[in-house]
């Protein structure tokens, strides 16, 4: 196995692990995992899901 092949395997593994880890971390932090970077359209709302659902009567 050449050096380049080892580098390919390591890079691919690190990449996959990195993507999965970043998603897990985002989820733990309560941020959206849709890759919008929290600055697209309306996504700042994602992590405020537990809003007070109290509504006005009448």
């Amino acid at each position, binding site marked *: *196995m050449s050096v380049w092949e080892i580098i*390919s395997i390591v890079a691919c593994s690190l990449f996959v692990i990195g*993507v999965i880890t970043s998603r897990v971390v985002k989820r733990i932090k309560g941020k*959206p995992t*849709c890759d919008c970077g929290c600055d697209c359209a309306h996504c700042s709302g994602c992590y405020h899901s537990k809003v*007070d659902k109290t*509504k*006005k009567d009448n």
Partner: protein
Amino acid sequence: MKKIVLAGNPNCGKTTLFNSLTGSTAHVGNWPGVTVDKRDGVYKKTPENVAIIDLPGIYSLSPYTPEEIISRNYILYEKPDCIINIVDSTNLERNLYLTTQLLETDVPVVVALNMIDVVNKNGDKIDVKALEDKLGVPVVAISALKEKGLKELMDKAYEESRVVREGTTVLTDTPLARLIDDVKTALKKQNVENPLFHAIKLVENDSMELNTHKETAPMVEEFKKTFEDNTFGKDFEAIIADGRYKYISKNFAQTVTKKEKDKLKMTPSDKADKVLTHKIWGIPIFLLVLFAIFHLTFAEDFLYLGAIFNFPTLEELGLLTEDGEPINFGVQLLSTFYDGQIASPGIFIDHIWNDLIIGNLFGWLGGLVEDSSLSQWAIGLINNGILEGIAAVLSFLPCILTLFLFFSILEDSGYMARIAFILDKMFRRFGLSGRAFMPMIMGFGCSVPAMINTRTLADDKERTATVRVIPFFSCGAKLPILTAVAGAIVVYFGVGNADLITYGMYLLGIVAAIASVLLMRSTSLKGETPPFIMELPSYHTPQFKNLMAHLWDKGKHFVKKAFTIIIASTIVIWLLSHFSFAWQFLEDEQINDSILADVSKFVQPLFTPLGFGSQLGQYGWVFVVAVVAGLIAKENVIATFATLAACLTAVVGMDFGELAIDAEDGIDAVQSMIMATGITIPALISFIAFNMTTIPCFAAVGTAKAELGNKKSFKGTLLFWFLSSYIIGAMVYTVGSWWWTTFIWTLAIAITVMGIVFRNKHNKVGRNQL
């Protein structure tokens, strides 16, 4: 850091101002309810940096919907240093209703008269000084869009943020003034912040206040027993609202000088509305507009000119070599928009991108890897596992951007809000209000923000029903599936038009959504349809800056996804398709012994009724892999095809070169799947329909879970998504394959409808007897 909040009515330009002040690119739309949550940024041109908080639009501080509660709570409990109350100058009196409430808090207020340029253009005038005197707080005329008056506004807001202010009210002349004063004094003794505001809300019977200030509530109740208004009786909310409006019309009407106008003369907006919101023609016009968009984006034969005039092809003109390649670069450029037919703008951009950029770039990269000294498996991993998967996904970027450019134009012009209005009558029959249309149409972009936008719906059951059908509105990520499969049908089988198939599938999604809502609102989610009141914004020419911001958002999101989750997924898929359970490396030809094949074959029979199950033979499992990979991100469906295409080529000995198939193009990747499995057209359409309506990507599933709130409802939603997509897929496949099954499906639907009607009638009789 000081906190300055932007508060105002929906669609008055808060987010436009926020973007101008902070340099952000938050989504701006010409319809009320775009912003459903607070967002913050920093303004740096004051002596010290200040935080700017953009709040969802509200008509008053008595909230009904979750996003209105966010605004009220922020103003009252997050201790902002100043409120910039953005007022739509073209509709001053109505906007000042909220202003009168904001003034009742102890927070310093600066009023920003937005859209003053439009007022001036109309020939009207607003006396800013007089308004300032009446309100008792600074007033600054601005144009958020043209970025005029913003420096002065921020300087005033910064100055005000340093002073201590006590709330004032315009209700001093109402019969409730004394009661308000007494309650305020009582609250003040309890050290309640913003006592005047809370006192008025208590008198108004605001349920949130009654729950918070239980000690003071009896005092108000005692007074109410002895009070009766001649007009409103004991409706204290109405008495206070009336007091505010009377004050506004008495004191502020004189600050506005309107140009003498012919009252009978219709404005251009009115004239357009007469046609576009017509009670009969409104919906057909909408469908026509939608078709025009799809035609402009996906049609190979623009306006069907090629079919009408029978233009000569490049081959007939002798402009291609014997291999079918253009004879020179000029002909290659010509081929991007002409080859016996004229390409639509979307397809023209698509050809430029794919033929000249993606094809060459990824072809060159692939060649470099191929020529390297790496072993075959490493070349396979990089070329098939990474490059082809990513190229197949990126090949759809032009179509996605073109489609969303048109959608953004509709949104920014104000037409989308009209569609909500014209659909209200139809939606109401199915148990939804027209307001529910706005999140649904946002679903064409992405299900995540669309589900969040359902917060603007006041009724929980309506909200649940809307969240459930949002994935039926095909999002940008599903577009590659639609385009690639539709394109492959046209190219491989030589039938239909890609634009018509794509348009048809979008319509199928809409019809499925309506049928599902009808079913839910007649069974598990029964309830009253809430009233729908929406202010129709004026039509205006879409802003170039906004359109580009929307496209940038969409493009960035798509590319980022392609270079993260899609690459990661294709690497995993490649590995699983090249290793056995014994962890032995497999050549492309041995793909059927891979982990991926073994696991997928186990699930394959489940999809037999949908046309892409056991009947597809030994390689049919690739469709199962694509469906499952699509749960991570829908772009994965085509990336999976592209990754596996090379293996299938090796297995079945297909000659891509002869058939001009190149797996770097998503359409070609689907063609290789068709050749390897022998899948039929109805099964392919069923595959699209299933993917369009099934469980969306993980991000959307997570959002649905958060938005729905309770576990039972979420589990029901997951089941609903799977079952509905399964039934729709099976219906499409069976009807497409055997026309007579139409009668069976019709009978099944009729029995279901009758069953529901009978059940509802029976329950109604039962309740009446009780």
